[in-house]
């Protein structure tokens, strides 16, 4: 497990470095994800221990958003003042984006049969 945890951290580190050096518009971890994906493609298979390590981290992914979410405590006043535009925009736009993406994807992958 440790070698693959090291590999995951190293991918992120290289990703963060590339993002910083080339001022890329994507976050370091996303570049790290691409790097790890390239490694797996070159290798031609995913080592079982890497799968176990990655799946372990991913099974706890929801938990990892809790500290950032608690940051809501810093913005109670601002959120209260902009409740209507913020709430309305968040609900409408999240639902619309989901519907548009899903319907278009289904339409395109089924050759337009059931739009």
């Amino acid at each position: 497990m440790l070698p693959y945890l090291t590999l995951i951290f190293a991918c992120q580190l290289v990703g963060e470095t590339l993002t910083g050096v080339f001022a890329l518009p994507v976050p370091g971890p996303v570049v790290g994800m691409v790097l790890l994906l390239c490694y797996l493609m070159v290798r031609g298979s995913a080592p079982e221990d890497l799968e176990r390590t990655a799946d372990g981290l991913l099974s706890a992914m929801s938990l990892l958003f809790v500290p950032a979410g608690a940051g809501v405590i810093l913005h109670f006043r601002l959120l209260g003042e902009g409740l209507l535009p913020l709430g309305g925009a968040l609900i409408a736009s999240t639902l619309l984006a989901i519907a548009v993406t899903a319907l278009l994807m289904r339409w395109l992958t089924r050759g337009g049969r059931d739009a």
Partner: protein
Amino acid sequence: MPDLQETWVYLSASPLFHLTLTLLAFQAATWVFEKGGRRPLLNPVLGAVILVVLVLLATGTDYATYFEGAQFVHFLLGPATVSLAVPLYRQWHHVRQSAVAIGASLLCGSLTAILSAVGVGWALGGTEAILASLAPKSVTAPVAMAIAEQIGGLPSLTAVIVIVTGILGAMAGPYLLDLIGVRDWKARGLAIGTASHGIGTARALQVNETAGAFSGLAMGLNALATALLLPIVWGLLF
């Protein structure tokens, strides 16, 4: 009880306390989620955030003190994002098959998220600072914060907006997708990841491996698309 007081002062200053609080709150919220039949409405991220905020308010703890402990959990977001390469690799044959459909759906979804957020926010009387903080709401937090700053929003407000968007997508997305009759895991995952980044992806991974891989892919691609498109769209709008 001076001893208890002293112990509290010691414990509340230690990172261990707020780290444990975060884990306990999440486990309690997960327990409710499981007991309630794993309904998306009982989203454990939302439940845990509410519990943590209540404890912080009740104990008069400021966010910076809380984050000293919670940062150890927060830090793992990076490695977890890198780990998304593994389900993505396992699903790569699906991705290659529908590369054009993925690209087109993602671009339209990304633009829909930006334009509808700014449009509805504007119609409901949002100030320009609020609109600029709203515009990048569907992308993962670090990218969203950088974009918000670039176009005149408040990065820390954007962070909260991004989290709320993620929770909303994870909660309402499955119901909406059932309602419009989209059952294909690829389309469901792509939609959830485009609209609600990592929080949606975390939820999708729990439900289905294909949905999770497509959601993770959409999250990464939308970060790129929004970072490139939004400053241009913003320039056209304002």
